[in-house]
């Protein structure tokens, strides 16, 4: 692969991720509105929000680490995008496998946590405490799912996993229970109700975002786009055979994102304890069952 080609992918992959992420966010808001019998936001609303936040005339920072956290957060997700294979582009996927990817996805969380910590707002700290707790909650079923999938495919290389699914069958069909557990895990990962303990606007004033304004909040919006994209692509690659072309890839992403959104609207919010208990009970149990089936099969 030529250097030029790689460079192009380095720019293009995050950019595409951002754009698709914008539409995913839009879809989420739209679907939510429609379920609530509202019209919902205009087509470019997510973009307007981000631009508006970036062009705020006053930008309040709480210190260098506040800025650094935001930069880490953006940088972490931009890195993660390059390690996610999409149709036509595989970036650096062969240089870092799915384990690397999972841990790369934790870097933005750490960045956010640092930035929020520097804000010195107790609500923000509570939010981070809850976010990390939630991470402990949803990562356990998620890791079991990943382990099961990797065990089934016999590799941790995402491109190989996709290729295997193309030649055999989708992970969804061969490991339906793991796929279900994974879906619940990514629901929690997206931080949607009933798992949105760390945003909790009515309790802790949106937690980590409480002191975020202007482009800081804008960057968080960007992060949200990239996060949804990353998670859905990861799930698609693991269970839906990745994409042959962008035309079947993007619908898969939307489908993956759609399912949690459809469910989320009807829920209120769990307590932190309940999130932990629920996620450690049901999806983890399902995932372990799926893992057992994988182990017994192979």
């Amino acid at each position: 692969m030529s250097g030029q080609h790689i460079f192009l992918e380095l720019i293009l992959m995050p950019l595409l991720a951002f754009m698709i992420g914008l539409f995913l966010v839009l879809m989420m808001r739209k679907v939510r509105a429609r379920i609530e019998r509202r019209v919902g936001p205009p087509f470019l609303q997510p973009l307007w929000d981000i631009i508006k936040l970036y062009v705020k005339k006053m930008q309040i920072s709480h210190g260098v680490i506040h800025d650094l956290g935001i930069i880490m957060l953006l940088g972490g997700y931009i890195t993660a995008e390059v390690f996610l294979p999409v149709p036509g582009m595989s970036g650096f996927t062969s240089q870092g496998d799915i384990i690397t990817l999972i841990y790369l996805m934790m870097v933005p969380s750490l960045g956010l946590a640092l930035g929020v910590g520097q804000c010195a707002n107790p609500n923000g700290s509570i939010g981070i405490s809850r976010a990390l707790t939630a991470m402990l909650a949803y990562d356990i079923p998620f890791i079991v799912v990943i382990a099961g999938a990797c065990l089934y495919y016999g590799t941790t290389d995402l491109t190989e996993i996709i290729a295997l699914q193309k030649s055999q069958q989708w992970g969804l069909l061969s490991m339906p229970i793991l796929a279900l557990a994974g879906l619940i895990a990514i629901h929690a990962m997206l931080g949607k109700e009933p798992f949105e303990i760390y945003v909790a606007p009515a309790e802790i004033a949106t937690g980590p975002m409480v002191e975020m304004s202007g482009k800081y909040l804008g960057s968080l919006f960007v992060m949200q786009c990239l996060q949804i994209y990353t998670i859905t692509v990861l799930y698609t690659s693991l269970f839906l055979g990745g994409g042959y072309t962008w035309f079947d890839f993007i619908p898969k992403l939307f489908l993956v994102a759609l399912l949690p959104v459809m469910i989320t609207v009807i829920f209120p919010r769990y307590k932190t304890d309940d999130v932990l208990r629920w996620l450690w009970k049901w999806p983890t149990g399902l995932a372990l069952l799926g893992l057992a089936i994988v182990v017994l099969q192979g």
Partner: protein
Amino acid sequence: MKDVIPIQTNNTETIAVSKNSKNIYQQAIDTFSNFCRARSLFVLHYCTGCGAIELPPAMTSRFDMERLGIQPMVTPRQADILLITGYVSIKTLKRVILTYEQMQGPKYVIGICSCTVNGGMYWQSYATAKVLSEYLPVDMYIAGCMPRPEAVLTGLQQLMKKIEKGEANSWENYFKRYDYYLGNQQHLFGDTWHTPTDILEEARHYHLYGAESTGNNTARLIKYTVEHDLTKLDAPLREKDSMTKRGKK
């Protein structure tokens, strides 16, 4: 092309504030920015009075603010609009001002209900701040007791138009005419009134320092700060100090 206005600070040093006259690119950017700002409004409801009850219908399925790009937000840091519904008592006003100062410009204030216009049915009350615009630069009043959601939405749409035209700049007045607003605030809260946000410093930073930014009232504030040597500890201690003093009275 720059014209430099020398201004007087509390440290009696002269700093230069440049005022750019805009070229065409900047004008284009400004136009686009205003376009986006008008289409994405985050609202912080400061629901102190009865008018708050009219907001949920405006947000939910009947009227659906979100189709206009208006979303509720819960902290002043994230919000563009401060919606003040109903009467503002003096005690509440302190919080309103604090919240307003923590919002990021461009920021807009909408007073809903008659009470924010002239005190409404509380005009005789000793404990109510009657005219909100004496303490904060208010962009728009939506009168009525209470105004219906349609009125609220119409008001918001008018504000959006103003923003898109680039006319909703009254938030700059708070910096440019800080002395005036501070004076009114001091009139209500006493001479030791402080907030954590250093408005003069911000005005300097964002080049919003005007001729009326400082005056007798800000001098009083600065004097108090210097007297109590609270520069290092900043606003909070001053606030606490003032509160305890008032308690002694």
